[in-house]
């Protein structure tokens, strides 16, 4: 089947829906868009109506309901589903259902087996170790025996002191847990047994599985990502460089991303940054090849101040910050859109180029503009936006689902979702220029609004301005 004959269901909302829509248009594909009652005013609905008319637009009860999406896909005659990020993007059951149901659809993302394989952190860690990819020191399987747990903990403390870490810390976590539940730090071997038993009993009660993981707690690190892309054959994955996502708000939420991951030409590091970037890229590609990775994906790494990398996890989806990698990349000298590449390859087209065709230049910065209050723990802000203007420039691309607003026709932020407003991607030939252009953009940005009580809009613009100077530094 020619890829132009496909019709893509966009199973998402907001900014990513807008970008998928545009990518589909660019590739000449038909699409179906969904929205819920809260999202009637969202930009993605307006754009879908403009580009595809009423017939490609369905109101559904919830983005979280797979049945809703699939029944719409059937009624609209869609042949593929793009999950975007969030919602069903990393749900291997959804991917499996899409691919194995009576009326089969194409899941635009990795095959469900890959999602399952890499969705499990323990499994990812084991896979990495089997290939010699560095991972966080500690156990790579649930430990059920107290003696063994103590042995691992003792070795971890000893290992850290050998590494010259003054205050070694060990993490004890329930292997069946997640999202910060059943996880504790231990600073002292004497306290370990107590903590271990507490976590084990908690895990037994909560998850009916008393397996416990014991790891070194990595302190003082940078958060790096490697962008990978592969076609359905999965044999020749390519990378689109690295990103540095260390600037985060409380609760480990990314706010500002920079590509490439390090810039040794303008910042001085204690280690050979170029070699390190190359190392993590090669490790990531090795793993992608091993599992037959067949879509876009991101390998997440932490790098310590001493330049030691550890693989954390793999995100088997297109990420929010994909645009910043695209901004510094050229394929055969042409600009690239990773979302379009993802759709194109997922529908069966071969990649058509190899790593040597991809070149990198300059520095990209992505700002996430969010209605939130940095002064009170980044609490989401809800209300009406009545002014949102910025100055266009050829070095800037801005993605937003907020429709054009005026004081008379404001946009109300729906309370059901995160109050993300826009992604701004700024490019500069080096770090200095990128930073200057970023500040320039933020300085000219006009973002105003008020909530139900008349209080003015709170956003993270100031926070982003302050952080611009810290990019790519430890």
């Amino acid at each position, binding site marked *: 089947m020619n890829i132009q004959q496909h019709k893509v269901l966009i199973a998402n909302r907001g900014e990513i829906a807008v970008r998928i829509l545009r990518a589909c248009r660019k590739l000449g594909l038909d699409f179906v868009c969904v929205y*819920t009652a809260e999202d009637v005013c969202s930009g993605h609905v307006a754009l879908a109506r403009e580009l595809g008319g009423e017939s490609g637009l369905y109101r*559904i009860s919830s983005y979280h309901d797979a049945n809703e999406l699939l*029944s719409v896909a059937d009624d609209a005659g869609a042949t593929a589903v793009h999950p975007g990020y969030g919602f069903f993007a990393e749900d291997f059951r959804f991917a499996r259902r899409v691919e194995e149901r009576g009326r089969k659809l194409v899941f635009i993302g990795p095959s469900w087996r890959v999602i399952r394989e890499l969705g499990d952190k323990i499994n990812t860690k084991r896979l990495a170790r089997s290939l010699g990819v560095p991972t966080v020191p500690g156990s790579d399987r649930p430990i059920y025996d107290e003696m063994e747990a103590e042995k691992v903990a003792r070795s971890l403390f000893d290992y850290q002191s050998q590494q010259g870490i003054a205050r070694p810390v060990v993490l004890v976590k329930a292997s069946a847990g997640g999202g910060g539940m059943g996880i504790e730090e231990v600073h002292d071997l004497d306290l370990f047994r107590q903590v271990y038993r507490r976590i084990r009993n908690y895990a037994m009660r909560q998850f009916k599985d008393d397996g416990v993981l014991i790891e070194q707690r990595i302190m003082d690190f940078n958060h790096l990502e490697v962008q990978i892309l592969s076609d359905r054959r999965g044999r020749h994955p390519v990378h689109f460089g690295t990103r540095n996502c260390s600037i985060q708000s409380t609760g480990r939420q990314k706010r500002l991303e920079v590509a490439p991951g390090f810039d040794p030409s303008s910042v001085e590091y204690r280690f050979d940054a170029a070699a390190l970037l190359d190392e993590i890229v090669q490790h990531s590609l090795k793993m992608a090849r091993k599992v037959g990775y067949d879509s876009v994906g991101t390998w997440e790494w932490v790098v310590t101040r001493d330049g030691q990398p550890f693989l954390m996890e793999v995100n088997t989806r297109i990420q929010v910050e994909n645009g910043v990698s695209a901004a510094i990349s050229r394929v055969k000298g042409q600009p690239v859109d990773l979302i379009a590449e993802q759709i194109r390859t997922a529908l069966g087209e071969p990649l058509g180029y190899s790593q040597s065709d991809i070149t990198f230049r300059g520095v990209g910065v992505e700002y996430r503009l969010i209605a939130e209050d940095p002064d009170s723990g980044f609490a989401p802000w*809800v209300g009406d936006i009545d002014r949102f203007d910025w100055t266009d420039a050829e070095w800037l691309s801005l993605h937003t689902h907020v429709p054009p607003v005026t004081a008379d026709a404001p946009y109300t932020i729906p309370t059901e979702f995160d109050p993300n407003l826009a992604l701004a991607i700024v490019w500069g030939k080096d770090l200095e220029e990128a930073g200057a252009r970023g500040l320039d953009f933020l300085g000219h940005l006009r973002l105003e609004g008020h*909530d*139900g009580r008349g209080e003015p809009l709170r956003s993270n613009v100031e926070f982003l301005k302050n952080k611009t100077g810290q990019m790519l530094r430890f």
Partner: protein
Amino acid sequence: MRDIAEVMAELKAAPYTEKAVVAPHTGVVQFSDVEEGSEVFGPTGEWQEIPGTHIATITRERNPRNIVTAERGILRKVCRELDGTFVEAGTMLALVRHYLTRQEVISRLLMESLYTFCAPERARYYFAPDVDKKVKILGCRTVSVQEGMELFIVSRMKREAPLCYAGPSGIIYEVCFDQNRNVDAGAPLIVVCPPEQEESVEDVISRVEREWSDGE
């Protein structure tokens, strides 16, 4: 606060509410053989275990689901033109005219004549734990509120914040929200009856008992 007689006259002129029966989700609709103008029922039985009148069946992913009426009333309209078609979530399938019962009229009037504390923003609301316990066990009318009391917990976007009550002191006469649903900004949360108004409340009730005959 409006004059009770005026509200009463208004209610008497149109002693019913009209509510649409909407599709809860997408799917193909198949109407049952109910007729326009016939009487429909809400859930009945001691434990509300008998569902309301079956209006239509909506099938999604080969999973049929019955759509039933939530309140007693008269079926004003059935959108038969949708029979056998695929509908979006929220599409109107039928219209039910529900005649107000005496109890509903009373609560309407009280809402007009007493102080209602409204939701400042669209969010989910819960009572503070100690109040919640009291409301659940003893009923809301045992809870007295005064200005500045920490009465609610507002849950919005995965964050929770306390909300203080503002308004005259008195007892909570009625609770108007569902703890599991989002409440729109400006929608009433509770009806508060100050002690000096208790008499007039009794008055309203006896007046309704006298003047209102259960419709239909």
